[in-house]
């Protein structure tokens, strides 16, 4: 069976006057029906822009310059704007990090979710209201009949994120993109929301693209994981395999630097330096300046993403 989503050679660049910022620089991955893929990376590595590219929502001056995004057999990059609008929110939905900014502050919760239902499922106002109440109940909001009348500011952060999830699920999408869905929330609320997404995913059989910087969430929730650095995927493998047997020096460094992995009081392993500025022209491997195992070759040319063992791909010259 072909995968639900197949992304090849995706590149999204921002033209900034004199320089070009390569936010997404040749990304390939695929996602099967019902599967969870996590894209992990630090701020500025291009993970959010990858998500926006999938929805064709790249903010100007950004542009998708090459690649293809095949979803359920059609290349999303070849669709007209109108055709894309039918897909967005209908078969692919997205939830964002900060629930307050993704809700309209002057519309009631019921109106906002109802709008999705009226536009995509052609429900009447009355039907939409009934369906909204059902959806709010589904995402665990107490007294949904009353909450539909509320404005976003009357709700707590966790409740707002539930509203956003209810809205994303209104049309039973086949793919849900969650961009840092719990970063703005406290751990106990985070546990509630992750549990909710997990349950809904099992019930609806949808695929989940989880974008996060929290390796703990990834270890517990994702089937497969892709590590991103400087606009490229540097390693991808089934999650358990990746955590047990990391290959890329960046992945190894990230895992070693976690306080969870260290003896309390002992110094943590660190990755020297900092994340590169993607607007600077770079030659060779993007991780080279911080890599403990760099060689002459790393400075000259970018390594390809190659299979090191079955299903375990890595972008490093150490693994030819």
């Amino acid at each position, binding site marked *: 069976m072909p995968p639900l989503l197949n992304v090849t050679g995706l590149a999204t660049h921002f033209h900034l006057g004199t320089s070009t910022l390569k936010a997404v620089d040749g990304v390939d991955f695929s996602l099967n029906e019902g599967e969870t893929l996590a894209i992990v990376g630090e701020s500025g590595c291009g993970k959010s822009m990858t998500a926006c590219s999938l929805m064709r929502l790249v903010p100007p001056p950004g542009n998708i310059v090459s690649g293809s995004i095949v979803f359920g057999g059609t290349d999303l990059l070849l669709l007209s704007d109108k055709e894309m609008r039918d897909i967005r929110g209908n078969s692919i939905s997205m939830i964002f990090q900060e629930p307050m900014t993704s809700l309209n502050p002057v519309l009631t919760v019921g109106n906002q979710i109802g709008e999705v239902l009226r536009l995509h499922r052609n429900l009447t106002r009355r039907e939409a209201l009934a369906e909204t109440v059902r959806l709010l109940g589904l995402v665990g909001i107490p007294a949904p009949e009353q909450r539909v009348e509320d404005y976003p500011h009357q709700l707590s952060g966790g409740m707002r994120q539930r509203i956003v999830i209810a809205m994303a699920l209104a049309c039973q999408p086949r793919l849900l993109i969650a961009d840092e869905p719990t970063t703005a929330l406290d*751990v*106990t609320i985070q546990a*509630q929301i992750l549990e909710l997404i997990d349950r809904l995913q099992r019930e609806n059989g949808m695929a989940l693209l989880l974008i996060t910087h*929290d390796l703990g969430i990834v*270890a517990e929730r994702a089937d497969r994981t892709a590590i991103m650095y400087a606009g490229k995927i540097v390693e991808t493998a089934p999650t358990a395999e990746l955590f047990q047997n990391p290959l890329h020096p960046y992945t190894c460094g*990230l895992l070693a630097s976690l*306080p969870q992995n260290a003896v309390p009081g002992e110094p943590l392993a*660190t990755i020297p330096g900092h994340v590169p500025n993607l607007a600077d022209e770079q030659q060779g491997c993007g991780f080279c300046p911080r890599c403990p195992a760099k060689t002459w070759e790393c400075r000259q040319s970018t390594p390809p993403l190659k299979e090191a063992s079955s299903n375990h791909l890595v972008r490093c010259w150490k693994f030819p």
Partner: protein
Amino acid sequence: MTAPLLEARNLAKYFPVASGPFAPRQTLNAVDGLDLSLAAGEAVGLAGESGCGKSTVARLLLGLTPPTKGEVLFEGGNLAEMGKRDLASFRRAAQLIFQDPFSSLNPRQRVGDIIGEPLVVHGYASGSELRERVARLMEKVGLAEEHFFRYPHEFSGGQRQRIGIARALAVEPRLLVADEPVSALDLSVQAQIINLLQELKRELNLAFLFIAHDLSVVRHLCDRIAIMYLGRIVETGPRDAVFERFLHPYTEALLSAVPHIHPPTGNKRIILPGDPPSPLSPPPGCPFHTRCPYAEGVCSSTTPLLTERDPGHLAACHFSMKLYRS
């Protein structure tokens, strides 16, 4: 045991708030009856969810906000009763590191001036001596000498946090309060700053109060841990005791909610229902009873006191012993 360096006794801070221009004034109990002490050279971690009063505690302990009730003692002296001279010496001895390395540095000052300012203000050094001391501080936190004349915007988040740390260390404090010092940093940079703080603590015998929501960071850095919920400390004790032999259901839930990179087997995740109650109208009795999976009748009527259950290990729960020691 020697007298603590810093001690808070029954500390409380209430803020009056009005929800609208004609609405009746309400009281927000940000901190409510908090006892905490720090010995010289000790690192204490204060953990809890947003809105539980962690940052207010930091401001109270540094004398930046007067408490509504209770007192803060520094080396036995009450902050509220200190004269100008004593207060100035307290301000030298206790320094603060901020969460956001972007808004806590003046964008129009050069790095050398930022780090040197406390030295000038407190009359420690001037001229070439000032320059020399700043250079030594910069070296200590891992900044290069050529950074002296640069402006904050030329630095990355981690580098800026180093500048903030150098500034805090300039007046040779004995107590550092760090309010979420690494939560704004990227993962790979976070470890660098954690190591730096650890080194400084060891080298300078600093007392540290770490305020953080990330329990794995707190566990890594601190000797003793206090868990806060709704303005109160619900459990406090030595690091390993709190993490491995916790005595409060909130601690248990908080620990089980942390996503772990090696998911432990057999440990069941406790999902707390609902949101933390509003500090504007805290529930009667135990503040945690509305979300507690073990709550009984007594919990909604009587507030449990912070009681010593093991040596140095205190918890505020009616059923600590029944739940965790049988």
